[in-house]
């Protein structure tokens, strides 16, 4: 088959206006030689929307464009679908005789891209909308621009702008009685010119002059583009008012439509962020509650069993059983206390942070506390205090808690016999001290190491509170410090806590 391609119609042929080339009163499009060949048309015949003087430009309106927008015109859609990917919206590739026009267009595209880029990185909806509004205003050469979003019940369009240095809020009914409402209700671009002039049509969208009265201004040209979400629901309207050149061209319409898409993307992104944040929060709360409940259940188990044995031992007068069970009961009461202290240690306010004093004394005190337990667990516990450590600046309560938790962690990791836990302090910099706790336990693989500072991610689900190392990380973080962990499976572990003395008051 070698059928001839169907002839591409020019606008005057498709729309039948009778103002094609050679007619008595040819339209500006028919004589626009700069557009010749664009989308396969004669002169501007297939790029009529890009010709100034059709929809809203100049003195003379093309008959096809009265009261409508080129972007919703059937002929525009026809050309777009016929040309497919090679469709040319602007006369960029061919026939651009005006370098300034080209530079302006490139500037506009770059501005759109810049907005898009900013949205990818630093995002805040209000700021983003403000930026988009400002860019849309500049690029359409408008005096003012505004983004209104649909909110509330019944839905209305809400926006804010600065007038004479004062922030004003505007609410427009979701009703076609205003140009903005019309764009929203009909999901349709509105482009008005000569609003106070005789030519201004009373059919179709009408600019609400009450707005001018309220804001003490006069609007002569006005562009309103609907903002739609992915489901094509109108979620707002973007407007531009008072074009410098006296009207908004179809290029302006096209760009404002793109800005509308950017606003829609920003709103969607905001929604997504909110949903993710709340999902993360819910999941964190769920994990925390589950972890706490697990830990408390284990403690409760020991308390219940211990009390059962003591009651029975009292009945049978067995001092030996009472003493054995009481020792265990006592430890679990202590564990319950540890749990509450660990929960409380997650307090964002650093208490007595700058107090500081003798770090070696604090560490020595903790080590002494654990000496008895070390004997009971057959663990050899040693302390090696460094020189020039004191005086140091630190939060004594916090560091005390850190060392307690690190020693408990080390004890739990130790083998059943011949366990060793070595605690040491060192000065590692002019304004930095280090506390290390090493054990000869079973060590950790990379996966375990990566998760140890998370809540309730203990490899000792039964003994610890599941908060111990998370608390250590939190306290060290508040000291502007850092933690280094050296460990491999079967090779024990060493936790080094570096505490910066450059205290920042939180």
């Amino acid at each position: 088959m070698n059928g001839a391609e169907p002839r591409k119609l020019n606008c005057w042929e498709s729309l039948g206006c009778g103002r094609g080339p050679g007619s008595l009163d040819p339209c500006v499009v028919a004589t626009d030689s700069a557009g010749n060949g664009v989308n396969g048309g004669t002169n501007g015949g297939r790029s009529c929307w890009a010709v100034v003087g059709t929809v809203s430009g100049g003195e003379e309106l093309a008959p096809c464009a009265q009261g409508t927008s080129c972007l919703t015109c059937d002929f525009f859609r026809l050309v777009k679908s016929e040309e497919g990917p090679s469709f040319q919206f602007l006369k960029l590739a061919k026939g651009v005789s005006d370098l300034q026009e080209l530079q302006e267009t490139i500037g506009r595209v770059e501005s759109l891209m810049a907005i898009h880029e900013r949205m990818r990185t630093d995002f805040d909806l209000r700021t983003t909308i403000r930026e988009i509004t400002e860019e849309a205003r500049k690029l359409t050469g408008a005096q003012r621009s505004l983004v209104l979003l649909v909110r509330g019940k019944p839905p209305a369009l809400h926006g804010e702008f600065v007038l004479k240095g004062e922030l004003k809020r505007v609410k427009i009914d979701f009703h076609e009685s205003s140009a903005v409402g019309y764009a929203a209700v009909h999901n349709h671009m509105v482009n008005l010119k000569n609003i106070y002039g005789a030519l201004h049509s009373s059919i179709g969208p009408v600019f609400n002059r009450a707005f001018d009265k309220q804001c003490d201004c006069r609007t002569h040209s006005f562009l309103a583009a609907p903002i739609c979400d992915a489901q094509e629901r109108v979620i707002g309207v973007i407007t531009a008012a008072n074009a410098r050149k006296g009207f908004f061209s179809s290029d302006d319409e096209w760009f404002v439509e793109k800005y509308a898409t950017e606003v829609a993307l920003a709103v969607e992104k905001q929604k997504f962020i909110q949903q993710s944040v709340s999902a993360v929060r819910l999941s964190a709360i769920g994990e925390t509650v589950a972890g706490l409940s697990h830990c408390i259940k284990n403690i409760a188990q020991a308390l219940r069993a211990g009390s059962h044995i003591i009651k029975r031992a009292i009945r049978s007068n067995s001092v030996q059983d009472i003493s054995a069970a009481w020792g265990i009961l006592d430890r679990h009461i202590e564990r319950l206390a540890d749990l509450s202290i660990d929960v409380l240690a997650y307090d964002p306010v650093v208490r007595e942070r700058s107090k500081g004093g003798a770090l070696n004394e604090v560490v020595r005190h903790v080590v002494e506390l654990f000496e008895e337990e070390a004997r009971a667990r057959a663990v050899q516990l040693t302390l090696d205090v460094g020189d020039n450590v004191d005086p140091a600046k630190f939060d004594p309560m916090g560091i005390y808690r850190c060392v307690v938790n690190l020693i408990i962690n080390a004890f739990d990791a130790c083998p059943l016999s011949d366990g060793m836990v070595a605690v040491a302090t060192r000065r590692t910099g002019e304004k930095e001290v280090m506390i290390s706790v090493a054990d000869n336990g079973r060590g950790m693989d990379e996966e375990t190491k990566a998760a140890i500072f998370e809540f309730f991610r203990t490899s000792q689900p039964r003994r610890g509170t599941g908060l111990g190392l998370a608390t250590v990380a939190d306290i060290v973080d508040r000291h502007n410090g850092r933690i280094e962990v050296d460990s491999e499976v079967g090779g024990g572990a060493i936790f080094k806590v570096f505490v910066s003395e450059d205290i920042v008051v939180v």
Partner: protein
Amino acid sequence: MVPRAKIMVVEDDFDEAKLIKMILEGEGYEAVCAFNGKDALEKLESEEPDLIVLDIMMPEMDGFAFCEKLRSSPGNENTPVVLLTAVAQHIQESKYPLNGVMRAEVQEYLEKPIEPETLLAAISGLLE
């Protein structure tokens, strides 16, 4: 004299293992402790327990892994087991499907904190 039933307590927390052992001994059972699944498997042959009280969350080899090995070891296909967990059963089951591990006729599943009386009732029920 009726020989005393021997119960193996598999529990990684020394304190809890000791407390359960004391409760069981107070009721006239003989009790031995193991501190994880691997330790328990090693002791299985020499101790020959009549029943096992088994914690689920343990390092090295957890309760479920131990149960699977237990059931495939000759002579232990029907050894009764009381499983203990501190995690609610529905969460536990969603994380660890019990297919092939749970056998209702020879196993009990108890959620901590357990009343010692409940534990003892479960044990005597399974030993009958």
